[in-house]
């Protein structure tokens, strides 16, 4: 009986030890195996990678129903978590089908069935990642990314600025807006460079984020309906007596007679004021 109990305990501890070893091994491996490379994008309806990896059963039904062969299943040896669907925008971008067949095909809800308008998809975010290479920034007309964008003028707009190199021409450069970009990757696919200057990245990589403690004064003012700091007073300048600013602060005029300002003793060098006084005479 004692031998039996010892044997039992031995078996139990051996099994527990084995299970623990396997668990540790799997856990460690998963750390590596689940990191998603930046150029690999998920199909529409994936909110976050870790939720997706618990929901996707790797059946490939989304891949089968993708009419443009955009989606692929990750194979052993690929960088993407084994067996899960992804696409590489530079190769084949998402065509943003209106009926979203990939999401409809998903049996588990790994691709969120609540996504019914493809414009709401957030597969990533286009970033004009290399302004040095983008020919629009060299002053050439390109605008290909803007023209292929399914949400042109919303997700990508053209911004006209001064061409400092020539001094007389305009730069017409694409600007991405994160509130509208779905990350379909058509811009990256169409970019005429050898290596795309505009790339779709996972939003997590592409987006900056202001610290929670940070407040933008003008937004707070708008929310509160009034200034939250000392009320704005007319600026007090150390101007010579009888002078006032005009032209929105860009020029000096003789001060209006009826609106006499209090003269403040200036801590600054008198000679500068002397010079101003001379100018007024």
């Amino acid at each position: 009986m004692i031998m039996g109990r010892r044997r039992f305990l031995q078996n139990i501890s051996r099994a527990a030890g084995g299970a623990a070893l396997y668990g540790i091994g799997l856990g460690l491996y998963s750390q590596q195996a689940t990191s998603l490379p930046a150029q690999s994008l998920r199909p529409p309806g994936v909110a976050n990678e870790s939720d997706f990896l618990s929901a996707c059963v790797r059946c490939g039904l989304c891949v089968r129903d993708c009419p443009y062969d955009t989606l692929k299943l990750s194979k052993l040896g690929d960088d993407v978590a084994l067996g899960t669907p992804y696409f590489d925008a530079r190769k084949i971008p998402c065509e943003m089908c209106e009926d979203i067949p990939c999401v409809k095909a998903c049996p588990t809800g790994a691709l969120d069935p609540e996504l019914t308008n493809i414009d709401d998809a957030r597969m990533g975010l286009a970033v004009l990642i290399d302004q040095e290479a983008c020919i629009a920034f060299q002053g050439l007309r390109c605008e290909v990314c803007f023209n292929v964008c399914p949400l042109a003028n919303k997700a990508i707009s053209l911004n006209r600025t001064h061409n400092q190199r020539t001094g007389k021409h305009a730069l017409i450069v694409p600007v991405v807006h994160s509130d509208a970009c779905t990350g379909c990757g058509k811009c990256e696919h169409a970019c005429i460079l050898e290596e795309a200057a505009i790339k779709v990245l996972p939003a997590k990589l592409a987006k900056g984020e202001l610290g929670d403690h940070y407040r933008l004064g003008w937004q707070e003012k708008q929310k509160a309906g009034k200034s939250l700091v000392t009320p704005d007073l007319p600026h007090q300048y150390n101007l010579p007596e009888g002078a006032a600013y005009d032209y929105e602060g860009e020029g000096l005029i003789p001060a209006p007679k009826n609106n006499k300002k209090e003269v403040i003793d200036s801590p600054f060098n008198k000679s500068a004021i002397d010079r101003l006084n001379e100018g007024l005479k």
Partner: protein
Amino acid sequence: MSVSTTSLKTPGLESVKKKTWLHAHKWLLLRRFSQIFILSLFLLGSVTGIWLVKGNMSSSLTLDVLSLTDPFVFIQSLLSGHIAETTAIVGALIVLGFYALVGGRVYCSWVCPINIVTDTADWFYRKLNIKSPVHFSKNNRYALLAAIAVATPVSGIMLWELVNPVTMLQRELVFSMGFSWLLVLAIFIVDAFISRRTWCGRFCPMGAFYSLLGRFSLIRVNALNRNACNDCMDCYVVCPEPQVIKPVLKKGDDLNSVILAGNCTNCGRCIDVCSEDVFSLGIRSAKFSDIAK
């Protein structure tokens, strides 16, 4: 009782002589047909463009109506914290019910493509007369299954599906082949040259899961005709889980002669190789006493 001698190399010789080759390989051929047929259903669409079955064995859609989901994969998803859509739940319940009825490890021997690899490996092992230098416990797979059951909810992702060679091989066969063939080759090498019946019989947690699922299944192999047994041992040689045969071949009137162990894959190979027709496929309530009277 005539006791014929057998060796690891040539089990079932006696049976072939007595029943013809075709009869002595009936269940084996049926299983191979089933395995290849199911796989080709998935492949048919990508080859011909006629989609009868879409997806793969993890989850599939047949004729655009019948949605089936593998319960092992489904439960992993559940454990990792995802409540699936109804489609997957219903699909998993159908498959779960089916295997609970016909025997869990029917999946292993009649569906899983890895089984073809490991059966072939075992054929090599026997022909080459290799003696295992390494030996893993048959319970090893349950330890792995337990590890998965704990590590999946802890990590919040389907850990095992990152490495599962079973779902990996059939997925890459149906979609496009990556390096899963290397992993399968490794399984073959281990099974054929290093340690006998190691993957399916000692490691595969999917097999362990289906063993538990089929624990109370209705369809069972029995040895109702065990009085005819001539102790040739051929069934032990070909059986992928020989420990399940032992209890039913013990002589004695009141013993149950139905193989009740969940590890039995219902492959029917024992029926094939037995020249005395000791084994047959039936339902679990069949008792030795039924024909012993």
